[in-house]
Structures are given as C-alpha cells and as structure tokens.
C-alpha cells in the first residue's frame, strides 16, 4: 500500500496558495473546474486586448488623417514602442498565469488520485473490519462463507468467485459457496493438487493469474477454468491449518487483477480462515449440545416410563394384598388363590423389570464380562423355548435346526438374547401368530434367526430400535409394556460375544432378527 498523506488544514496548503496566486477567487476549495473557468476568463481577456490593439493598428493603417491626428500628440516611433511594450506585458502576464494554472492542474489531479487511493484504502479497511466482526460474532458457517465471498468480491470489484472448503480427513476440496453467474457449482468437488485451487491448497501459496491460465502449469485444467482470463486464488490458512481456498475470477476480460489485489485478498484470507475455524467449532459445540439435550430428553422419558412400569404391577400387588386382608372371610379359597397368584405374577414382572435395568447398567458400566467358549446354540434355543412353553405362551413356538450348531459365545448371554427376542416377538404379535427360531450353520459363522408374523416395524423406526430407551411409539409400548431397554441389551450382549445383529421387517408382515456368532475364539 502506498503511503497517503492527508492535507493539513491548519496552514495554507500548496494548492490553495497556487490557486490564490492564479487568481481563482474561491480558492478555499480549488477544483479542476475552477481552474478551467479561470483559464477561460484569461483567454477572453487576452482576446479582448488583442482585438483592441488590432483595431487600433487597423485604424492607423487605413486612415491617414488619424495618423496625422495622432502625430500631433505622439510621434510615430514612440507610438510603436508603446504598442509593442503593451503587447509584451500582456503576453507575459498571460504566460505567467498559464504556467501557474498548469501547475495547479497537475497538483489537483495528484490530489484526486490520492483521495481515490484513500477511498480504496478506507473500503478495504471497512471490509477487513467486517470480517473481523464476523470472526468475533460467531455466525453460522454458511453466513460466514457468504460474507467472505461477498467481501472479497467487493474488495476486488469482481463479479465471480468461490470459497472451497477442505473436507476434514480427506483431500477433497468442496465448493461451499459460489458466485458464478448462472452456473451452479456449489457442491462441486476437486481433489487436492488438481486445478488452480488444488495447486493453491497443496502448496499453501496464493497465486495470481493474469491473462489465460498457462496450460503447461495446469495441465489438468477443466474447460470452465480455462476460460478464466484473470484470477486470484489464495489458501485459507488459520493457525497453521488449511481450511480451504478462496478464489476470485474474472471471465469477461473487463478486469485484470494485480499484485496489489493478490496482497489485499491475502490479508483478508487470514481473517476469513479464523472465521471459518470459529464457525466450525461453533457448529461442533451445537451438535454436542443437541445430542446432550436428546440424551437428557430420553432419560426423562425413561424415568417416566420406568415409574409407570413400576407403579402398574405395584398397584395390582398392593390392591390384591389389601383385598385379601380386608375381606379374608368373604373370599372363597379359589378367589383367594387367584389374588395370591396375581401377586406372584406381578412380583415376577417387577423383578424382571429390575433385572433388565440392572443388566443395561452393567453393560454400560462395563462390568458385564462375556466368556468365549463353544456353545451349542440349538441346545440353548431349545431350553429357552421349553421355558416359554412351560410358562404357557399362547403363540406356537418352534426351533428349526440341523441338530448341533456350535459357536463361540457366552451361554447365559445367548439364552438372554433369545428369550428377549422371543418375548418381543410375542409382545408385538397376535396371540396365535407362530414364532420360529431358525439356526443355521455356515463356514466360519453360525446364525440364529427369530422369525415372527407379527405387526412388523416401520422403516423409519428400524434405524433406531437398538438405541437405549428407544420405543417405537407410546401406544404400542403401553400395550407391550417394557421400558425400551430390551433390544438395547440384546445388541450389547450379542456384540459382547463378538457377534452382530441385524433386523428385517415389513409392517403387517412380521420381523426377522438375525444374529451371527463367530466360530472362532478371537
């Protein structure tokens, strides 16, 4: 940036003094127009004087009698000397004024240039301070990018440009924000090292292209980039990290960028990089907070559900016990037994609920330890199914297997997984719908499938059913009971044994839960 001095208003400036001497009356603010006006004044004055002299001379030449008349008072040689003298004085006077005016004009033009430069500087500073504000304000990343692009275009007086961001962990440069006439290039991807932007990103150096891009330098330029006539491209580097590339182009040929432009954009790029870094950090923080809020909401829901799930069996237990005590005499023996059985069943239900919550918290705290020993999946499945049949499940239950299927797993965990899945299948099916456990043997892996013909799971819900506290929706939950821990526990048990679980389901048709256990110990 060239140095600029502001005019000193306290003492009379050079220009003002020159204007006064040149005869410009309104010399407090001399302008080029005033100079021009003064020049005209002098020209007219000179013209009038010349006209007068010429008139006098003519009269003397044409009219003899006038010469005689003049000669009576002035001898002719004296008159001639007078004429020449007068013309010379006026001529010199005009020459002097003209020289002064010339000088003044030059100074005024200089001053105009200086003030234009000053204006440019002011504009640049205000743009830089805008970006400085953006850095401190923390805006949305999109807003920050748009502002960076807009400001850099304003700064260079250009029409087209783009901000490319480096995707974290890759070498992809993605156009995040662009002004490119009618072309929609946002989202376009360039690899690090490819094209002008790729070169700038790779070498972390700004580049100025004046005239067509040299093809021997950028052998892999695309056609749209080849049509660029002048461009400035700078890396966005903040605290040693590369965030992307800022490009300003001119395709029309109306503007050719200079070293000066490159330097201005370079200064600007530093602020821009920091603004991008802050916006990204802000975005990350916000994501974290959103996630924490979601977890908090799930916890609140979980507590509400759990308290409801605890109160329901407790209501029956307390109610039954009170009834037995208060109406001991009036109740018949079978009636009394019915109440006692109810208390027992509801007590077991409570116990099961508490065990679920405990095993979920065990898994979470990492206390749960899984053995990896050979287990016959068929034997475990048959035992679990027998248990359900003994408890009087209404759905037809079957095990489909080739005899013995061995996998490396933790036996109690496999049993719990199966019983949770069968319990789920029962909850989400009509009471007569069949449930099948299918076990298949494959090289290296063993597979268990729990297949039901129940209500199925909607495709939106499929993605989240293994999440903690997740329940498909309140109404089905209420019918089925539970607190949304079953499948979360199942998934963690399976993974604890080195296996994996997946689910396929269609609404109204039923679901298939597929578990694969490894046959190796690792």
């Amino acid at each position, binding site marked *: 940036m060239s140095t600029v001095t502001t005019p000193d208003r306290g003492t009379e400036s050079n220009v003002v003094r020159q204007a006064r001497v040149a005869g410009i009356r309104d010399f407090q603010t001399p302008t080029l127009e005033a100079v021009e006006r003064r020049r005209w004044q002098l020209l007219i004055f000179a013209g009038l004087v010349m006209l007068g002299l010429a008139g006098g001379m003519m009269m003397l030449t044409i009219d003899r009698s006038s010469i005689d008349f003049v000669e009576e008072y002035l001898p002719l040689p004296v008159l001639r000397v007078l004429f020449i003298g007068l013309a010379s004085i006026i001529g010199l006077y005009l020459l002097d004024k003209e020289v002064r005016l010339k000088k003044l004009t030059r100074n005024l033009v200089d001053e105009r240039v200086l003030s234009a430069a000053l204006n440019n500087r002011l504009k640049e500073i205000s743009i830089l301070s805008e970006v400085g504000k953006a850095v401190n304000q923390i805006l949305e990343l999109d807003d920050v990018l748009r502002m960076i692009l807009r400001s850099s275009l304003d700064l260079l007086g250009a029409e087209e440009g783009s901000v490319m961001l480096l995707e974290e962990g890759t070498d992809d440069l993605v156009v995040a924000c662009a002004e490119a006439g009618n072309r929609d290039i946002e989202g376009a991807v360039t690899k690090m090292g490819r094209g002008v932007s790729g070169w700038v990103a790779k070498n972390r150096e700004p580049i100025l292209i004046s005239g067509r891009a040299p093809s021997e330098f950028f052998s892999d330029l695309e056609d749209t980039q080849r049509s660029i006539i002048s461009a400035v491209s700078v890396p966005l580097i903040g605290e040693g990290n590369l965030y992307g590339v800022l490009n300003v182009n001119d395709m029309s040929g109306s503007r050719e960028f200079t070293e000066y432009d490159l330097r201005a954009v370079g200064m600007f790029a530093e602020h821009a990089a920091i603004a991008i870094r802050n916006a990204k950090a802000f975005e990350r923080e916000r994501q974290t907070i959103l996630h924490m809020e979601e977890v908090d909401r799930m916890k609140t829901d979980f507590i509400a559900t759990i*308290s*409801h799930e605890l*109160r*329901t*069996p*407790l*209501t*029956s237990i*307390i*109610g*039954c016990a*009170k*009834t037995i005590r*208060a*109406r001991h005499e*009036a109740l018949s023996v079978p*009636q009394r037994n*019915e*109440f006692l059985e*109810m208390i027992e*069943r*509801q007590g077991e239900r409570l116990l099961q609920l508490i065990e679920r919550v405990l095993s979920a918290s065990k898994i979470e705290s990492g206390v749960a330890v899984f053995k990896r020993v050979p287990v016959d999946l068929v034997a475990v499945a048959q035992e679990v199914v027998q248990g359900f049949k003994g408890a009087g499940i209404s759905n037809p239950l079957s095990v489909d297997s080739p005899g013995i299927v061995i996998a490396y797993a933790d036996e109690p965990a496999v049993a719990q997984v199966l019983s949770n899945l069968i319990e789920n299948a029962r909850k989400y099916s009509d009471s007569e719908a069949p449930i099948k456990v299918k076990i298949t043997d494959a090289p290296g892996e063993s597979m268990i499938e729990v297949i039901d013909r129940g209500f199925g799971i909607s495709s939106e819900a499929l993605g989240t059913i293994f999440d903690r506290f997740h329940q498909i929706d*309140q*109404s*089905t939950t*209420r*019918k089925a009971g539970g607190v949304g821990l079953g499948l979360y526990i199942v998934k963690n048990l399976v993974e604890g044994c080195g296996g994996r679980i997946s689910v396929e389901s269609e609404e109204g048709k039923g679901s298939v839960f597929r578990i694969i256990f490894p046959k190796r110990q690792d």
Partner: protein
Amino acid sequence: MARILVVDDEPAILQMLKMNLEMEGYEAILAGDGETAIKRIEFEQPDIVLLDIMMPALDGWQVLQRLQEMSLSKPPKVLVVTAKGGEHDVSKVFELGAVDYIAKPFDVEDLLERVKKVLARTEIETEERRRQLIREWM
C-alpha cells in the same frame, strides 16, 4: 344396583377391581381399551367409569373428549385412575369433565370410598332434579 365400568389395559388391575366392586355389591363391567370403553358406555350406560389414562390406541384423554362430544342423555360420572401424576394432568382431568382423580398405586378401600361418595352425590342430584322437574310440571 349401580353399574360401574372399569377401563384399564392391565388385566391384573381389571380383575382385582372387578372382584372388589362385586363384593361391595356393584355390577362391574370391564374394558381393556378406549374403543371398547366408548362402546360399553354408549350401550350399557354405566353410572360410574373408572378410567385409566395411559392406554394403547385410544387413550383416557381421548375417551373423555369423545364422551363430551357424545351428549348422552345420562352421562356417567368419570373417575380418572392413573399412574401419570403431574399437576397439569390433574387440572386437565377436571377440565375434561371427570369428577375425581385417583393416583396409582391406589388404596382399594379409598377407591371404593370415593366411588360410594360419587354415587351418593349423584343420587342427591338426581333427586333434586326430579323434584325440580315435578315443580316445573305442576
């Protein structure tokens, strides 16, 4: 003999309340969900409904709303029995026309006492209404 409809999605609670109500000499009818409850209210005209809030499909709130829309000639008195228990819920219950609110887990004897009170109040109201009608008629 007063007829009482118990609405709850929990079979154990239905059974326990039915036995208790019958022993008190009421006629107890049951509904496991909101839809059945609406039908039974419409066709069997119970005097009192013991209504659970958290139920699948049609929940207790919706049942109360439907009841208000139905404009029955002799609407039943509704006692809400629920494990939900925020203050907001309590006020909402009365706004929707219920006469009492009982929190789960409840005391059976307390519940029976409240049922008795509601029935007595209903009887007084009916008696007054009858007298008023007679007066108007004369």
